[in-house]
């Protein structure tokens, strides 16, 4: 079956198996491997992408559900070689160690900014509640997101 949607600003049309999940569509068919798959059951947030301005788990969606939607993945954050301020601040504040959770964290933070450009620390904590990080202890991640909100 063919599905049509917008991906990082570009109209996209893909022919795919009917039972494919979004995370597989992105990583296998479209070679967008920035999106990670951790748990596959909605419990880690590594696979987070943005669909119609909302953060969602790409492991919990069938690709068919994207029909007509506007999708942003971590690849859509930077402007060519120029990193998004969130990405810059994750580097600056040490919000990245192994990096596996980072794309999902970035997308949850980006979705938060779409809804609320001036979030409080509590808003930030709620927004990344669905993203597990096993390395950083979250503090530098929250600092990086806070700094991005204030710039």
């Amino acid at each position, binding site marked *: *079956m063919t599905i049509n949607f917008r991906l990082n600003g570009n109209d996209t049309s893909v022919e795919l198996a*009917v*039972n494919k*999940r979004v995370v597989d569509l992105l990583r296998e068919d479209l070679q967008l491997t920035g999106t990670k798959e951790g748990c596959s*059951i*909605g*419990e880690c*947030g590594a696979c*987070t992408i943005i*669909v119609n301005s*909302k*953060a*969602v*788990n790409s492991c*919990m*969606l*069938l690709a*068919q*559900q994207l*029909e007509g939607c506007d999708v942003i993945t971590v690849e859509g954050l930077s402007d060519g070689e120029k990193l998004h301020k969130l990405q810059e601040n994750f580097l600056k504040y040490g919000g990245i160690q192994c990096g596996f959770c980072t794309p999902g964290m970035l997308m*949850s933070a980006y979705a938060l900014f779409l809804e609320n450009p001036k979030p409080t620390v509590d808003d930030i904590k*709620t*927004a990344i*509640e*669905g993203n597990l990080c096993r390395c950083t202890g979250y503090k530098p991640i929250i600092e990086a997101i806070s700094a991005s909100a204030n710039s």
Partner: protein
Amino acid sequence: MKFKSYVYPLSLSAASAFLANKNELNFLNAGGTDLLGLLKEDIIKADNILNLKYLKDLKYINQEPSGELNIGALTSISEIINNVFIKKNYNVLHQAASQIASPQLRNIGTVGGNLCQRPRCNYFRGDFNCLRKGGDTCFAFDGFNKYHCIMNGGPCFIVNPSDLAPALISLGAFVSVFSNGREKEIPLQDFYILPSANYLKETILEKGDIVTKIRIPAQPRDLKSNYIKIKERETWDFALVSLAASLVLDGKKITKGSLVFGGVAPAPYFSVKGNKDLIGLDLKNNKAIESFAEAFVKDANPLSMNGYKAIMMKNIIIKLFSEII
């Protein structure tokens, strides 16, 4: 996870007819956060999957001049949380929605899907052909039953996993079901069935039925409501025990109210007698509260590993009362 096609019906009747097809097993994909897990683990086998997203009239939150609130079945959990009217007036619903799963899953998951989600019993979700899957044994009865019911169980001992259901039932909500070409409305508390009546399904829904709407009748102006959910992890977890309360107080005395529990029974649990005994209860009187809570758990019939739930049930009542005033 195999199925033949993924379709977008353009009307409720078309969708319902498709689902009702006797020769095929067809399922609705609302958000799919529960459905996908069921398909992946082969707990259900599907021929075709239906998505209702082009039926725009299933996604809304409408406040009527009469004071009642109508919520379309495809409304997301996040839309419930962000609705200002609900936040201000129906704290119980706001709190229940806010404690579901994670932000990402709340953005995908819908109200209809939340009410119709299948049980989380680890045997049901795993590779066990238990009673509920058509087998002849309930593995939880003698097995790992820490998360199972302490009320109204047998021959299957699931708990209803929905956080929205207790909150909505405490508000006296009604659910509309499109069935055989027409819509019927029933109290949400009558939507769920116990294993003793039928252990193969959790709701009254028949093949082809679609939940279309939730209606919350106008509430008293001075309604005080809350939802407390006890869970093992802050995020992603289902309730061990939860309590939805919608109360009207005169000073510290309850004049009207409803308590509905999650996590303790195969359907959201309430007690007609308990709700009657609420009336006149003085929230300053610790002794009275204690014996009220005690009476509520009198009917508990725990399995080998879930006796803690009876204690939790009692304590959650006391906690809720102490916080609501």
